[in-house]
């Protein structure tokens, strides 16, 4: 009985995360359509929800082709890495009290480490494809993710200072009085921007910019391997939204409604915001992206860290 609950948690979170990622395919298309004065997929089943099933069946039965010039094993490994690293991050995510796979004391660092591992997927995919566009995409991806990783961690340090813990569950508990989005608003904005860059979503989708480099690092991928990148991206969106919820919006905390409802309401609000950004903002030039990361975001994150540290040191927590 002792290991049954963790097993239930593991499989529950795995299944919910994966089916949510599939659901997001439909959700994003409907929301994008909503903001573009269209309807989006609304024919298959009620509200077009059958589209999820149709897309899944389609992508499973597509030919999975490995180009003869590709580095075969690395080529196969790359999409697995992105799925694995993103799913690993879910293991420290506290959804409601009791529903968490691992109450890691350094949960926040674990999440950051795993999201850094995601870079390998992009680099290896672009490298093994033996395709100049894929390589360009991989170069862009690695440069972008490395530079945004820097202040992604730093922007969270204010939260850590205020909560006094790296444990995600404790961070949520520390927001009982006031969500960290209020005292740490700058940190929230920085983490949001870094999170979008980490998931390679539009405004920051330069590694897969269609108009410039075909599909970037996954140009050569097809079938379910491409589907893995796709699902990995959506899992990343869910993960970043959940992390923002946990770090800045008080996780499951909220009045009246049960904690699980609060968690999902917050997460879906943030996912919708991700989609809204995709619907409204054009992508910047690459040098603008880099200079924004190093010359604006990094100093801001450092200043945020210093000010938070000074205030906490002076007034106490």
């Amino acid at each position, binding site marked *: 009985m002792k290991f049954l609950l963790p097993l239930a948690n593991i499989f529950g979170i795995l299944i919910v995360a994966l089916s949510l990622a599939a659901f997001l395919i439909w959700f994003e298309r409907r929301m994008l359509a*909503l*903001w*573009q*004065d*269209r*309807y989006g997929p609304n024919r298959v089943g009620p509200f077009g929800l059958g589209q999820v099933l149709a897309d899944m069946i389609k992508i499973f039965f597509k030919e999975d082709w490995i180009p003869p010039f590709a580095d075969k094993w690395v080529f196969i490994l790359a999409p697995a890495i992105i799925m694995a690293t993103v799913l690993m991050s879910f293991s420290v995510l506290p959804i409601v009290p009791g529903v968490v796979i691992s109450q890691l004391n350094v949960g926040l660092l674990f999440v950051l480490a795993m999201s850094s591992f995601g870079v390998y997927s992009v680099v290896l995919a672009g490298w093994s494809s033996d395709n100049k566009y894929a390589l360009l995409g991989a170069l862009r991806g690695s440069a972008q993710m490395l530079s945004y990783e820097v202040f992604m961690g730093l922007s969270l340090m204010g939260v850590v200072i205020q909560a006094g813990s790296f444990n995600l569950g404790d961070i949520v508990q520390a927001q009982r009085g006031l969500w960290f989005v209020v005292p740490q608003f700058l940190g929230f904005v920085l983490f949001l921007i870094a999170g979008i860059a980490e998931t390679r979503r539009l405004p920051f989708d330069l590694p897969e910019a269609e108009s410039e480099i075909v599909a970037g690092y996954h140009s050569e991928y097809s079938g379910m391997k491409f589907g893995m990148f796709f699902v990995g991206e959506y899992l990343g969106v869910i993960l970043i939204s959940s992390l923002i919820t946990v770090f800045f919006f008080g996780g499951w905390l909220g009045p009246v409604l049960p904690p699980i409802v609060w968690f999902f309401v917050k997460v879906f609000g943030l996912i919708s915001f991700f989609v*809204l*950004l995709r*619907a*409204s*903002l054009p992508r910047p030039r690459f040098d603008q992206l880099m200079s924004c990361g190093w010359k604006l975001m990094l100093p801001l994150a450092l200043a945020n860290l210093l000010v938070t540290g000074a205030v906490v040191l002076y007034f106490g927590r």
Partner: protein
Amino acid sequence: MFSNLRTIWSVFLHMFRKRVTVQYPEQRVPLPPRSRGRIILSRDPDGGERCVACYLCAVVCPVDCIALQATEDPAGRRYPEFFRINFSRCIFCGFCEEACPTYAIQLTPDFEMSEYHRRNMVYEKEDLLIDGPGKYPGYNFWRVSGVSIGGKDKGAAEREAAPVDLRSLLP
């Protein structure tokens, strides 16, 4: 930065706009009567075929989708023995309609002509010929033209003077 936020906000407000999508099978686009869809062959008000098989439509057709063979009835009226349009080639340019001297060939607003087999896209004369005069009611080529056919001699057409008797002009 502010303009970015304003962009996000104004895109968000699009949520409450009217949808521009026309939900096609249930809703339909109101098509103007002169829109160019399926081609038909019309009849004159008396019920006779308007087409005089002059080949002008077949000549002007940029994709060569019209095939016909002219023949004559005992009264001397020209008409097409067969008239065939291959709609898998047709580009609905409407040149045939413009070229037609008798208003016989006309394009209609109907565009729903999908088929499962390519050969079903070839329309024969019986598929093309309709019972009415189409867009030009009251026009009858044979009644206004100077050609003599059975039952109508030279000079018998509308607004046509009787032919001049050349001999009576002799001095």
